[in-house]
């Protein structure tokens, strides 16, 4: 099997904006109080050529096509699809049967409703399961400010990098790129270690311990970086592996090492087309981990980086008053207060 150079893989992943033909997609979930969800997908493209869909839909949806001409005279083709789902299970079924561009990602939605007498609390979320089993959370590499910027939508990043504090935010972006670069290296090596030790254990029951390899993880990162340009050939010869685990073990576990590398690459490099997700909740919004703009729209960017090593959960919570509970409570209080007043009057 031809091995792709890790460096190239990592560079591809690190470039956040890759020119692809996929349309710019925004998925909006309008959550209703009974648990039903109206999903609207809007795809914009420079070409009237919608082949890859980031979010699945079919002919049961209401689909409309339109066109917009921008100020610069560019034509933008727009495809809008809408469907009312009775519950999140129907959405999850659509995701399960997805054959679109992002079928590799395991996505599911969740909805819960809790009755708290005066209010009903709603929670809606969409989660994408993580790809790597042995990866590191990105928060171990970025500080709070960097983390917030890392998860910001592209439009916000672009605004900030062209705004009055552009220098600050560009420097922040560079710092994040440098740190996520290291994060990516660590992830793929960690994944390889995890898979490799599992395979070696399966081979002869004993294998190579995770702990022993983990202690040398940083050294392995240095090795990979060092032999960046000639990685393929050196790996094929077994030289890299010798540096990792010694000559004896390298010869013994060559097959497992190759399998582990294929496995790690497969899960590290996934062909995921990014899009944006919006959620509109019933009642008053009380909590979210999303980005709230000035019109109180909740927005999340969805990109493969976000669910590489951790599940990416996009959630929102809201509350709606239970009118009948307020009325019943009001009557009850009135009844008790009236009784107490009557007693006071009669006593007097």
């Amino acid at each position, binding site marked *: 099997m031809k091995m792709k150079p890790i460096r190239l893989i990592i560079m591809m992943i690190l470039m956040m904006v890759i020119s692809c033909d996929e349309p710019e997609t925004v998925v909006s979930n309008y959550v209703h109080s009974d648990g039903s969800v109206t999903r609207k997908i809007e795809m914009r493209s420079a070409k009237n050529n919608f082949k890859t869909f980031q979010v699945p839909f079919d002919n049961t949806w209401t689909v409309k096509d339109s*066109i917009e*001409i921008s*100020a*610069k*005279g560019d*034509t933008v083709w727009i495809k809008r699809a809408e469907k009312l789902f009775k519950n999140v299970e129907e959405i999850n079924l659509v995701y399960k049967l997805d054959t679109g561009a992002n079928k590799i990602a395991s996505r599911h939605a969740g909805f819960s409703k809790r009755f*708290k*007498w*005066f*209010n009903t609390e709603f929670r809606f979320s969409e989660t994408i399961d993580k790809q790597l089993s042995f990866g590191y959370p990105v928060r171990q590499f970025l500080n709070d400010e960097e983390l917030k910027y890392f998860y910001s939508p592209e439009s*916000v990043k672009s*605004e*900030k990098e*062209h*705004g*009055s*504090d552009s220098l600050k935010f560009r420097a922040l972006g560079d710092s994040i790129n440098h740190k996520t670069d290291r994060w990516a290296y660590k992830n793929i090596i960690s994944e390889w270690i995890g898979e490799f030790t599992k395979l070696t254990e399966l081979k002869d029951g004993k294998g190579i311990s995770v702990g022993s390899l983990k202690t040398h993880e940083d050294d392995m990162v240095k090795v990979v970086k060092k032999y960046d340009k000639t990685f393929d050939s050196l790996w094929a010869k077994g030289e890299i592996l010798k540096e990792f685990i010694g000559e004896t073990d390298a010869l013994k576990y060559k097959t497992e090492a190759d399998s582990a590398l294929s496995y790690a690459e497969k899960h590290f490099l996934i062909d995921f087309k990014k899009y944006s997700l919006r959620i509109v909740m019933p009642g*008053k*919004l*009380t*909590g*979210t981990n999303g*980005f*709230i*703009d*000035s019109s*109180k729209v909740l927005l999340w960017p969805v990109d493969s980086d976000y669910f590489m090593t951790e599940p990416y959960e996009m959630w929102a919570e809201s*509350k709606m008053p239970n009118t009948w509970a307020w009325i019943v*409570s009001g009557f*009850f*209080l009135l009844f*008790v*207060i*009236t*009784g*107490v007043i*009557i*007693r006071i009057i009669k006593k007097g």
Partner: protein
Amino acid sequence: MTMIMESEKYNKILNVLRVSKPVLDSTEDIEKEVIKRISKVKKPIFNLSEVIDSLFGWVYIGWVRRTLISASVLLVMIFIYQQGVMLKQINFLSRQIIDNREEMRFSTEQQVEKLLMEYKKPRRGFSSRSITISEKQIKELLDSVNDVKTKYKDLMDIIQNNPELKKLYDDKLIENSRTKIKL
């Protein structure tokens, strides 16, 4: 003397009357008649005091009264707590929105737009104020207007040259005019 004798006669008569209490021979007849008449009296269909007593009779039972009052107080406390938590959550989110907005600075183009909006306001509201606009901003404004004119011309050319676009454009115009009529 005569007056004293008269007073004595008066008092004597009174004494006789005081000593001689009227005797009720039998109370049984009265009792029977009273009970009979009470039992015969039809209860009014709606007796407000009875209704009140039946509804609010619990106030005289100590433990029931105390339990209900405690339940009411608890209900009020739960309400205040829930609303307080919700307000806190909403305020926290509102502050998040503000934070994000403050970080966005208006570009020069948007500042010019802002000034234009000010100018569009009715004269009487505007004349009492003055705005400051630099030469650079005026130049930008004029460039922007010229740019719009050029782009409009280019846009119309594009539409005229593309049959598909032209059709869409014409359909849209018809749709808009229809909407206007409805309004």
